[in-house]
């Protein structure tokens, strides 16, 4: 094997200019893939992080049927305390669950005494909500970062439109599930920035204020947002939750709960899927570059070395070894390109990280892009290049190995 590599390296060095040009082309392909993967991956993960860590959580659990009518925020579809207790027990038994936050979601009217508009509110336990959504506090641009009883955090859009400032008194009026209307005066303690996606323009109140406004005798929860210790275990925890909750049936004998990952809660998931698709497309382009480059060079190499092939075949080199010689050469070409591309590409990704590129997305501005490449990306791209280099050199190598020595020796 060492001898195959030695001969391959020397043959590549023999046609130095061609080797440099081809491996450069492969390296450029690898660099572009790494840059795209690094930047798009960073963008995707940042957006997913923004959504899961500042409003959705990683997983949400609702009473079965709630999601179908979530636009109405139906109070009649809330979960009873016994159901919530069962869920809390399940969450506590799953080690991968870091925290969870029960919410009462409701729609109501917000009045400044001179103006009134509609508002969507989340009644939350402040500590649980902040633990489950660690980026929530960073969205509160004005005022305190806490959600205290008797206070309200209102969305930025309403604050701007109705000229509401921190410290102002507002009234929240809501209809409870029996149809009666109730209101409560609250002090504006903060203004929360909007983010793209469902719940991105909701206000926050303390869960006990929500109960008071809705005249709840016992706490009925609309949803429970769950945060995982490791986001990578999203689907395994989702499956575990589904399995554990599948036995919980309602009076009609149907499942009592429904579990959703962030993917089915946010339209950004489709954008994330598109990014993944584009990454595949870019990798396909890299594949084409490597395939055409390696194939072209190896076809030329075989053509230029027909007499040499004839000689080694004549002296008894087996066809398989001749094939290996040329495949090794093609693979080395790919590996050289992959190594150069990975080094330069990783360097450029790091440079982009240092430069701190900012961008706007939806209503969010000044998001700092933090591109990165993982070892997995590098290994995968190197594997693609190597495998495609093998494929690219197989046809010319096969041709070389099948060459009749007598014809090859006669070649001029």
């Amino acid at each position: 094997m060492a001898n195959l590599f030695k001969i391959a390296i020397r043959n590549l060095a023999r046609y130095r200019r061609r080797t440099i040009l081809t491996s450069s082309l492969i390296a450029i392909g690898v660099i572009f893939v790494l840059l795209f993967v690094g930047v798009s991956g960073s963008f995707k993960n940042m957006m997913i992080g923004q959504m899961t860590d500042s409003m959705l959580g990683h997983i949400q659990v609702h009473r079965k049927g709630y999601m179908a009518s979530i636009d109405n925020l139906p109070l009649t579809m809330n979960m009873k305390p016994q159901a919530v207790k069962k869920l809390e027990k399940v969450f506590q038994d799953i080690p991968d669950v870091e925290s969870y936050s029960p919410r009462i979601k409701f729609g109501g009217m917000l009045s400044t005494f001179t103006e009134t508009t509609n508002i969507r509110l989340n009644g939350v336990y402040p500590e649980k909500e902040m633990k489950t959504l660690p980026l929530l506090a960073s969205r509160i641009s004005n005022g305190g970062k806490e959600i205290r009883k008797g206070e309200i955090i209102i969305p930025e859009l309403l604050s701007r439109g109705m000229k509401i400032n921190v410290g102002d008194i507002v009234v929240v009026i809501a209809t409870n599930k029996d149809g009666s209307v109730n209101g409560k005066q609250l002090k504006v303690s903060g203004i929360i920035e909007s983010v793209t996606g469902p719940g991105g323009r909701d206000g926050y109140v303390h869960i006990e204020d929500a109960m008071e406004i809705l005249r709840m005798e016992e706490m009925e929860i609309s949803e429970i947002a769950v945060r995982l210790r490791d986001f990578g275990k999203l689907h395994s925890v989702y499956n575990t939750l589904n399995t554990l909750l599948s036995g919980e049936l309602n009076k009609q004998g149907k499942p009592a709960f429904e579990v959703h990952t962030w993917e089915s809660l946010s339209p950004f998931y489709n954008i994330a899927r598109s990014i993944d698709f584009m990454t595949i497309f870019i990798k396909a382009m890299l594949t084409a570059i490597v395939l055409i480059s390696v194939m072209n060079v190896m076809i030329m190499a075989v053509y230029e070395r027909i007499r040499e092939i004839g000689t080694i075949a004549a002296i008894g080199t087996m066809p398989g070894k001749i094939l290996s010689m040329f495949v090794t050469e093609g693979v080395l070409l790919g590996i050289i390109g992959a190594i150069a591309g990975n080094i330069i590409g990783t360097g450029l990704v790091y440079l982009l990280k240092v430069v701190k590129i900012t961008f706007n997305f939806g209503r969010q501005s000044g998001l700092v892009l933090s591109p990165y490449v993982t070892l997995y990306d590098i290994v995968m791209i190197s594997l693609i290049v190597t495998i495609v280099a093998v494929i690219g050199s197989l046809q010319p190598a096969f041709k070389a190995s099948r060459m009749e020595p007598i014809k090859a020796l006669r070649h001029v």
Partner: protein
Amino acid sequence: MALVKAEKIVKVYKIGEVLINSINGVSFEIEEASFVSFVGPSGSGKTTLLNLIGCLDSPTEGNLFVAGEDVNELDRRQRALFRGKNIGFIFQDFNLIPVLTVYENVEYPLIMVKNVSTKEREERTMKLLDAVGMLEQKDKYPDQISGGQKQRVAVARALVTNPKLVLADEPTANLDHKTAYTVIELMKRMKAEFNTTFIFSTHDPKIVEAAEVIYTLEDGEIVDRHVKGVNSNGKSL
């Protein structure tokens, strides 16, 4: 038993629509450890005959036995194995591998063809390089040595696997007369030292003189067989 036995072998080539009879029913026997030359004008069939003996080509008709093996029965892969085991080649254009040094060129068949241990490889390569007088040039590449030196390396490469038979197609055609004579002398010496049969083709009359048996070919037929002596086994040729 003859090392090479040809029975009425015929080789017909088809070039376009034209059939060319390159070898016409040739029969001969070549004993072990002999030094045989095929001579004749261009197009007489010398190279074709050497290619047939070397299992690089198959006869259209007739039987050909090399080292006791009916080579007509061998498939492509078996022929490659057979060549690697039994036959060494010396080419008119030397055909050294340009990316390998003199040492590596000689060593090549032991690695790629015979899979010999490192120690034995080194011993055999050094012995052959010493025998052909190329030991001092062992680290040079083919483009750094002269034509005569290249052919010495080719002789060493052909012999390094201890083949029963070495085939040399016009081995001196690209060499000046003095160098050509030196190479022929080298081959004779190697034949004596390693007890190997050498068969070569040439149309250089002065080189022909060195051969023990001379077959003259014309239009694909053997028109003369001239025996100059006895082979190294003392058997009449």
